[in-house]
C-alpha cells in the first residue's frame, strides 16, 4: 500500500465535466485529485472525437473535442489539480461521516470528504474480438507475455514469443514494429489490406514483410488453440482461400476501446439503468459526500449534454463546500467583480 493521499475532493473521470469541476471546486477553495483510466485528459472528447467539431458549447460556435479539452485544462490550471492517469478506481468506502476512501488498481489510496463521480459512459476498456473461449487464454499478469493481452505494459514479457497481433490501427502497427526485433516470430492479421495507422508505420511494416520478418495475413481470427489454458496457435479465415493455422504463444488483439460502467456498479449507489440517481439541487447521490455529474447521472429531464454537466459541477461545488469547510460561510460571488476570486485565478 502506498501512502494515503489526503485532499478535498477526488474526481473520478477527467472528461470535460470532471475538468470543469476542478474550476468550480477551486473557486471555492477546494483542491482536487483526478483519476482516469485513459492516459490523457478529455475523456470521450479526446479519445473518441478529438478532431470532430462540437457545436453546442455556449459561447463557442464550433470547437473540436481536443480544443475544448485544452481550454478546460487551461481554465483549471490556476487550481493546480493533480492527475492520476492509466488507473481505474476500484474501491469506494466510507471511513467515517466525514471521509471517503478511494482506491485504484495501482494500489493508491485517497481520502477526501468529497468524491465526485464524473465518469461519463464508464471506463474505457479494450474491446474483445468475438472469438469463442478467448477468456480462457487471457493473461492478467503483465510481466508474463504468454496468452492473450489487450495492452503491452512490459515489452520484455514478449521476448522470444511467437506473437500474433490483430488490427490495423496505430496500436497494432506500433507493437508489430516494437516487438518484432525481440520476438521469435511476428504475425500480423487484419481484415483488409488497408491500414489506417500512420503511413510511416505502414511502410515500415510492409518493409519487414518484404524482408520475411513479419508474416502478414488478410482475414479474421476465428478460433484459438491450446491446452490447459496455454495458447499454442490460432485459426485464421483468410479473405480468400482455405483456413490456415498460425503458431502463436502470445496474441495481442487491438480493436479499440469501449465504455463499461465497471466497479461503479458495486459501490451501493442508487442506479437506474447503469446511471447514478441524483437530485437536481446539489447533484448528490444517496450517500453524503458522493456526487455524480455529467453523463453518468440521471434525474427527471436529464440531457446528456456537456453544458448540463458544467451546470451540475457548479451546483455540486456549492454544496460540497459545506462538507469541506463546515466552519466557513459561503458567499456567492462573480469572477467579474470579486477580488478574492480573481486572486485565486491569478488575474488580479
Amino acid at each position, binding site marked *: 500500500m502506498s501512502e494515503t493521499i489526503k485532499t478535498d475532493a477526488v474526481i473520478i473521470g477527467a472528461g470535460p465535466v470532471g475538468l470543469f469541476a476542478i474550476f468550480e471546486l477551486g473557486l471555492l477553495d477546494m483542491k482536487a485529485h483526478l483519476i482516469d483510466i485513459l492516459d490523457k485528459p478529455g475523456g470521450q472528447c479526446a479519445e473518441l472525437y478529438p478532431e470532430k467539431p462540437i457545436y453546442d458549447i455556449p459561447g463557442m460556435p464550433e470547437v473540436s473535442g481536443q480544443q475544448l479539452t485544452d481550454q478546460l485544462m487551461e481554465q483549471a490550471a490556476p487550481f493546480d489539480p493533480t492527475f492520476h492517469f492509466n488507473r481505474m478506481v476500484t474501491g469506494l468506502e466510507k471511513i467515517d461521516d466525514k471521509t471517503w476512501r478511494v482506491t485504484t488498481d495501482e494500489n493508491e489510496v485517497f481520502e477526501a470528504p468529497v468524491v465526485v463521480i464524473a465518469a461519463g459512459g464508464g471506463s474505457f476498456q479494450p474491446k474483445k474480438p*468475438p472469438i469463442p473461449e478467448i477468456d480462457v487464454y487471457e493473461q492478467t499478469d503483465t510481466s508474463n507475455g504468454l496468452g492473450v493481452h489487450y495492452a503491452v505494459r512490459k515489452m520484455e514479457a514478449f521476448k522470444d514469443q511467437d506473437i500474433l497481433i490483430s488490427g490495423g490501427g496505430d496500436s497494432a502497427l506500433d507493437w508489430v514494429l516494437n516487438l518484432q526485433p525481440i520476438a521469435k516470430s511476428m504475425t500480423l492479421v487484419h481484415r*483488409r489490406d488497408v491500414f489506417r495507422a500512420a503511413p510511416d508505420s505502414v511502410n515500415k511494416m510492409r518493409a519487414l514483410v518484404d524482408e520475411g520478418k513479419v508474416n502478414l495475413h488478410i482475414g479474421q481470427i476465428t478460433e484459438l488453440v491450446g491446452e490447459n489454458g496455454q495458447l499454442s496457435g490460432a485459426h485464421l479465415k483468410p479473405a480468400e482461400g482455405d483456413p490456415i493455422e498460425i503458431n502463436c504463444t502470445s496474441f495481442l488483439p487491438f*480493436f479499440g476501446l469501449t465504455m463499461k460502467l465497471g466497479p461503479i456498479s458495486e459501490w451501493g449507489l442508487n442506479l437506474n439503468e447503469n446511471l447514478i440517481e441524483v437530485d437536481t439541487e446539489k447533484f448528490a447521490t444517496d450517500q453524503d459526500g458522493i456526487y455524480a455529474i455529467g453523463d453518468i447521472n440521471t434525474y427527471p429531464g436529464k440531457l446528456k449534454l456537456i453544458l448540463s454537466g458544467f451546470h451540475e459541477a457548479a451546483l455540486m461545488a456549492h454544496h460540497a463546500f459545506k462538507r469541506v469547510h463546515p466552519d466557513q460561510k459561503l458567499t456567492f460571488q462573480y469572477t467579474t467583480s470579486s477580488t478574492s476570486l480573481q486572486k485565486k485565478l491569478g488575474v488580479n
Partner: protein
Amino acid sequence: MVKITFVESNGTEHPCEGDTGMTLMEVAIKNDIKAISADCGGACACATCHVYVRQDWQDKTGQANDLEEDMLDFAVHVKDNSRLSCQIKVTDELDGIVVDMPENQY
C-alpha cells in the same frame, strides 16, 4: 415516414418508422433498440451501431466511405455487408429496408 425493420441476430424483428434526414442509428435509438449501442452518439467514432445491409438494398444505401471503413476495423463480427448505421441517411428510397444486427456490438 419511411419503414425500417431492424432484425436481431436471433431473428426478432423490430419494425420502426423514421423521417428522411435521420440516420438509421437515430431511428434505432429513438425506438429503443438495445442491439444498437451508439456509444459516441453518431460521430462515426466508436463502431457500436454496426448493422448488416441485405444485398438487395446495398445500391440504395451506398457503400461505406474510407472513414467508416476505418471505424469498421474496430467493430466485431464484421462481414462484407457491414455498415455503421450512423452513416446511413434515411431517404424515401429506403422505405421497407430490412437491416440485420450482429449478436453484440463489443
